[in-house]
């Protein structure tokens, strides 16, 4: 459950940067590949869920690790 194709660290950044960077990173992936996103902005919890649902990319994981939020998105 922990494999990913690319990792994106948005630690310290607030809305809208984590979503903008996630969007850009996903654009460069192939369908089926997995992007791991690390964030510290609590706002990303709702944002990432909405982003995945809205853009047709599956949110495989949303968890916390220490002070960070970890997401894994699979490009649709």
């Amino acid at each position, binding site marked *: 459950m922990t494999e990913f194709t690319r990792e994106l660290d948005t*630690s*310290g*950044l*607030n*809305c*809208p*940067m984590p*979503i*903008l*960077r996630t*969007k*850009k990173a996903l*654009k460069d992936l192939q369908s089926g590949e997995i992007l791991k996103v690390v964030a*510290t*902005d*609590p*706002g990303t919890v*709702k*944002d990432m869920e*909405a*982003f995945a649902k*809205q*853009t047709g990319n599956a949110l495989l994981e949303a968890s916390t690790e220490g*002070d960070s939020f970890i997401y894994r998105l699979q490009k649709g």
Partner: protein
Amino acid sequence: MELTNIHLVAGAGFLLAMVLGAVMNRTNFCTMGAVSDWVNMGLNGRFAAWVLAMGIAVAGAQVLELLGLVDLQSSIYRTANFGWLGYMVGGLLFGIGMTLAGGCGQRSLVRLGSGNLKSLVVVLVLGITAYATLGGILGLLRVNYFGPVAIDLASHGVEDQGLATLLGGLSGMAVGSGMRWLIAALVALLLIGWALRQPALRSSVDNLLGGIVTGLCVVGAWVITGVYGLDDFDPVRVESLTFIAPTGNTINYAMTFTGATINFGIAVVLGMIAGSFLYALLSRSFRIETFTDRTDMCNHLIGAVLMGFGGVLALGCTIGQGVSGVSTLAAGSFVAMICIVIGCALTLKVQYHLMDEPGFFRALLRGIADLLMPWRAD
């Protein structure tokens, strides 16, 4: 200390703002986030929440005015002085600023309450810039370049910049109270109707709650300053919620406390922080956040300056002009609000393209192209 009218008005404003701060923290109500959701993921739930707040505020404020309960005419929004360049440039700069700073004035106060020290920096710089723009060094720029091009509607025989009055002035018809009721009802219905038609608003309790409470608090603020605070011997300014100039006033108040008097705007700024703080404690979501990135800190500082300057120039922020101003049906408030949205959307696009474009101007051109032809955008 004897409690005078201004203390009672400020106290009521503080309590109202505490409720709003808590609700905004809970619901993630954010006008920059609203534009970001829409531009970046095609989701308009938070934008619809903002529009719902406008609609409710228009309905409430107009009923109060047309029943003769609140004198909206004496607020800063609907004067005969139509400072179109200030609304446009100020709005654009504010929109750019709130995107760079990760949220507008209101959002920064809420995030400060929940422990975000980046927002503390934004609030301080924004407030000081606002103060400098009101009567300081930046005020010269405002008065010398933006003041002279303002249109004095009174010299064209139009009393003020209210939509109804403008319509009367342009058509040559006399606008009676029936016409004013009709225009107010149409605008309120249009805004509320559009918002409630959006599935992303209807399906989200938080978005509905954020929009409704924001709208009601703006109406509540008109009641506090316009009805509750009405006192011929100890008058207070008729105003509603706004967050840029009052943030500057709050900093000044803190520094000159012993010789200063509180006012409604200062109490609202403090109430927002307090409400958000209490909610963060109760929901165990209080957490200290700091800058970790050099570019990010530069962006926040530039954003805070642009919001402080632009917000004063445009006479308000996303709430001040975008909801309170709009609720008076002043034409300039609609201009400022639309320019804020354009500035924000364009900045989001430029930031997106800057991630893989070699230069700023190419990113800017691509961003403008995206906004003009949204169907071709990424």
